[in-house]
């Protein structure tokens, strides 16, 4: 067969299924979201009518949406605060430490564990009656810190954020560690000869060396914090009230629990716009500080 015809065949044949799946299961549903967001569809009936931007206006006016979004913010802030600690742990793991491989395995383990199992482990840990966490606080003489971890509206979101930190911080540590290991060792040796101290080496070799990984983690944090779902969905269903709901939990419940597909679709569209906007702002901020 001549290679020109073959080229056309192989391009079409190889791309047909992957691009078809991409369009059918990702791009088309996204277009559909835009369409549904302009309707009053309940997800069941055959017909629906277009209501303009009513769903968007409604989303802005719904208090639950804002509550949920402020809960997302706490995930974002706490994971942000943990980034310096994660870098420190990675730096320590990168030293020639006895058992550093063992500690590395432990640090990363929570990320690998089944997310459903992790959520239920913590549900048990936070149990108010004879729960392990309260028992531990009691044993340590810290009775004053005992809380209704999952039923007090002022505490519950912090309890869930703690689960998220437990689960994902180790993953970030491993990403930073991978970045550290790609920094050439001779840079440090040269700096030592030039009389640089530990802080200088960290500030002028390590941080620039893992800049890319820091950017990746920040990007993952924005996307992850905006889309928190598993932990509240499994542990509290967003409750009590909306005190531990997140934007995604609220959206999913609007669609599948309250059959308000129009509102849910408009929320999904807004979430996508937020992800794009925040990612762009972040890359602008980081780009501006660079050496370029």
């Amino acid at each position, binding site marked *: 067969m001549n290679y020109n015809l073959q080229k056309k065949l192989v*391009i079409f044949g190889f791309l047909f299924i992957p691009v078809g*799946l991409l369009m059918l299961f990702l791009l088309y549903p996204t277009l559909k979201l835009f369409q549904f967001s302009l309707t009053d569809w309940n997800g069941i009936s055959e017909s629906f009518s277009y209501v303009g931007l009513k769903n968007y206006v409604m989303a802005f006016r719904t208090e639950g949406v804002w509550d949920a979004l402020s809960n997302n913010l706490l995930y974002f802030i706490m994971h942000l605060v943990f980034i310096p600690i994660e870098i420190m742990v990675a730096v320590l793991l990168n030293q020639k430490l006895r058992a550093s491989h063992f500690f*590395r395995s432990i640090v990363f383990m929570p990320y690998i564990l089944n997310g459903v199992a992790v959520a239920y482990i913590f549900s048990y840990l936070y149990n108010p009656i004879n729960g392990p966490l309260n028992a531990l606080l009691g044993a340590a003489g810290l009775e004053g810190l005992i809380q209704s971890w999952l039923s007090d509206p002022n505490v519950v979101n912090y309890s869930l954020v703690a689960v998220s930190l437990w689960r994902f911080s180790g993953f970030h540590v491993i990403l930073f560690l991978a970045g550290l290991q790609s920094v050439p060792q001779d840079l440090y040796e040269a700096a030592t000869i030039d009389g640089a101290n530990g802080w200088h080496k960290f500030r002028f070799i390590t941080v620039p060396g893992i800049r890319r990984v820091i950017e990746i983690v920040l990007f993952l944090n924005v996307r992850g914090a905006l889309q928190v779902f598993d932990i509240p969905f499994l542990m509290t269903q967003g409750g009590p009230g909306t005190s531990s709901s997140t934007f995604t939990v609220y959206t999913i419940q609007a669609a599948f629990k309250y059959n308000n597909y129009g509102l849910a679709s408009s929320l999904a569209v807004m979430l996508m716009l937020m992800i794009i906007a925040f990612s762009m702002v972040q890359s602008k901020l980081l780009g501006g500080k660079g050496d370029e």
Partner: protein
Amino acid sequence: MIRRMSSRVPVYLFFILISAIVLFPVLISVFTAFKTGPELMKSSPLALPESWQFGNLITAFKTGNMLVGFRNTAVLVVVSVILNTVLGSMTSYILNRFDFRVKKLIMAMFMVAMVIPFYTTEVSRFQIIKSLGLYDTIFAPLLIYAGTDLLQIFIFLQFIEKISSQLDESAMIDGASYLTIYRKIIFPLLLPASATLAIIKAVDIMNDMYIPYLYMPSKELHTLSTALMTFVGQRSSDFGQLSAAIVIVLIPTIVIYLLLQKYIFAGIAEGAVKG
């Protein structure tokens, strides 16, 4: 020498503290899984079991639909990882070796897919799955997991770039077709990269909860995650059996982690540093 050792002590203490924070929740669940009902009522939740009882584990395994969960999770993981690897490497081969009119458009589509939110898209994808007759079949998650994405394509592209196109050309002189070049040259040389990506993908699928929950509600289609959700929904106050079910679901990922750690770390490093 001694001064060096002693300066390390705080570092070790710090890591022991981290290890305790990581292991405490898991170990408590293991202890609880081995305790009997009366023992749970009277003893501290922090205490070791008086004697290691397997009753909870046996009950959870039998009534928790765990065998079905293992089977469906295994089928989902194996089939979708293979499909995903083949489709991803085919796409990357075409994108690297050929120039054609809609190439930029296709890359742009994969880029758009990167910003599509994970869960909220199910609101409309659910309708599409239903209208295709895929609802409550194993094909719904299979087709969703099988699709390739930008990250996988980027990593494959870096590896394909390193495969000299002279190899392709000399194969063509021998009369090999493009299909043969992909099968005999590209795919085998991509296998090391595929292995690490496949392990990460497998862990993701094994731990996924919402797609099987939404698209495969039938009992005989439960995965480990959804079997656990159902079991917990039925007996949310029996912490012995609940912990036993949790431990059973944790075992496969822990075994895989212990066996394949090296590749998992390599895969993550690959994605983070070069990706």
